[in-house]
């Protein structure tokens, strides 16, 4: 069943587009970026999230409505499947995280199996949040869900590779956090002086490799 996106007012110059599913949110984000990139529509910020896309700093909500129809989003979703086959970003990981055993218990397998599964899964960055360059990476099929820690750590080191719910993320900087830590990487996740400040921008395909 195809349902039309719901456009929710977010003040005078923004609209929150509710797509109802992760796949369609990802496709709508890509489509929205393309439309702005081609100067067909204007917006200051396009912010993807779990199942929504926020179009902020725009004046023509009717034009956005006309562009982000269910039909257009579904067409973009079919294209997204092709993009996923493109070259992924590869992140080298030492699987030495303190919560590897917790994840293994949650998944009902061994720690080695967790590493095996994590390194053979292709992830796509759904959205960023929490800190600049902190990417919520999802996979299809989704990883089994992992609970957040009851007791968040006051300081998670930069480069920590972690899981929560069915998302994988890498801490771009030291900060408090409640995700389950499975490993560490030396990759620089966020560097504002680079042309592409975030290594894992929304839409990026990423694979993890054991080192």
């Amino acid at each position: 069943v195809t349902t039309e996106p719901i456009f929710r007012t977010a003040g005078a110059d923004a609209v929150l587009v509710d797509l109802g599913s992760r796949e369609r949110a990802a496709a709508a984000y890509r489509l929205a970026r393309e439309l702005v990139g081609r100067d067909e529509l204007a917006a200051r910020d396009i912010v993807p999230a779990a199942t929504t896309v926020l179009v902020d700093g725009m004046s023509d909500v009717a034009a956005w409505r006309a562009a982000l129809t269910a039909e257009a989003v579904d067409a973009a979703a079919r294209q997204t499947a092709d993009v996923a086959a493109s070259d992924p970003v590869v992140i080298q990981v030492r699987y030495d995280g303190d919560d590897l055993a917790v994840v293994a218990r949650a998944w009902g397998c061994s720690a080695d199996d967790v590493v095996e599964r994590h390194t053979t899964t292709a992830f796509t960055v759904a959205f960023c949040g929490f800190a600049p360059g902190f990417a919520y990476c999802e996979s299809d099929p989704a990883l089994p869900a992992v609970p957040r820690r009851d007791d968040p750590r006051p300081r998670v080191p930069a480069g920590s590779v972690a899981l929560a719910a069915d998302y994988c993320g890498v801490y771009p900087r030291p900060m408090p956090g409640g995700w389950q830590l499975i490993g560490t990487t030396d990759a620089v996740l966020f560097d504002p002086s680079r042309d592409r400040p975030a290594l894992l921008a929304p839409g990026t395909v990423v694979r993890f490799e054991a080192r």
Partner: protein
Amino acid sequence: MSRRSPAVDGALDVVRAGPGLLVEDLGRPGWAHLGVPPSGALDPDALRLANRLVGNGEAAVGLEVLLGGLSVVASRSARVAVTGADASIEVDGRPQPWGEPISLAAGATLTIAAVRGGLRSWLAIDGGIVAPRVLGSASTDTLTGLGPEPVRPGARLRLGRARPPAPPAAAVPRTTAGLVESVATLHVALGPRDDWLTPAATRAFLEQTFAVSSDSDRVGVRLEALDGMALERGRRHEELASEGIVTGAVQVPGSGQPLVFLADHPATGGYPVVAVVDRVDLWRCAQLRPGDRVRFQTTSAPSAAVSSGKDR
């Protein structure tokens, strides 16, 4: 991203920095999809005006001064202007006007002392402050730490070269006097998630008076319901997936005590945003002190926020 640095011409020595002194410009919009807050002056129009008053481009880098307590000395003669909170301004002890260009001789001391109304002032200096840009902006982002460190006493800030004097700014600076009395009214558009409030909570949101909490900052103004009516969410047991946040968003977390997001707000959040403060009222949020009273007034009909693409 611009890598051009303006030519340096002199310095501004910070003798006293007050309770909070930040380098701010108009922020770094356009990076929210990477989790970067917009940041920038909490009242961008006040910084724009100060810049125009000294002949700068509107986006020049200035200082955001929390509750006065500022004392600075320029190494060259300068034209400066102070906007925002109603503060007493002096040069070497002589009173100076608020919201007008002020001549500051080399070596003279500019002070922003007591703040009579409001909370934050903006100081512009001709030529602007020269500071490294991060993602196109020299603003200090207090949420993520992007941009310069907060300014401490003893700091020496580099100044840019002043442009030839421009015609004086025509705009009349708005007064903050209205804030020192009674209750600030913030106009809001309901949505995107006003349907998460019970009808009683929507009434409580629009009808009761809130007090500004002391843990308010550049991330947001935290409010406490004075009549004790926390905003009950109709979907208490559901969790909202993270979604994008706009400046001015009024978020209702589990506590039921609303929070108005300001320039250093996170790009996404997982609590429902039930309304958004009109842009024209955001400057009031930058001036609210702990204990100040706030009411919300809607500019849209309740629950009119949702429409689908079908009925366009």
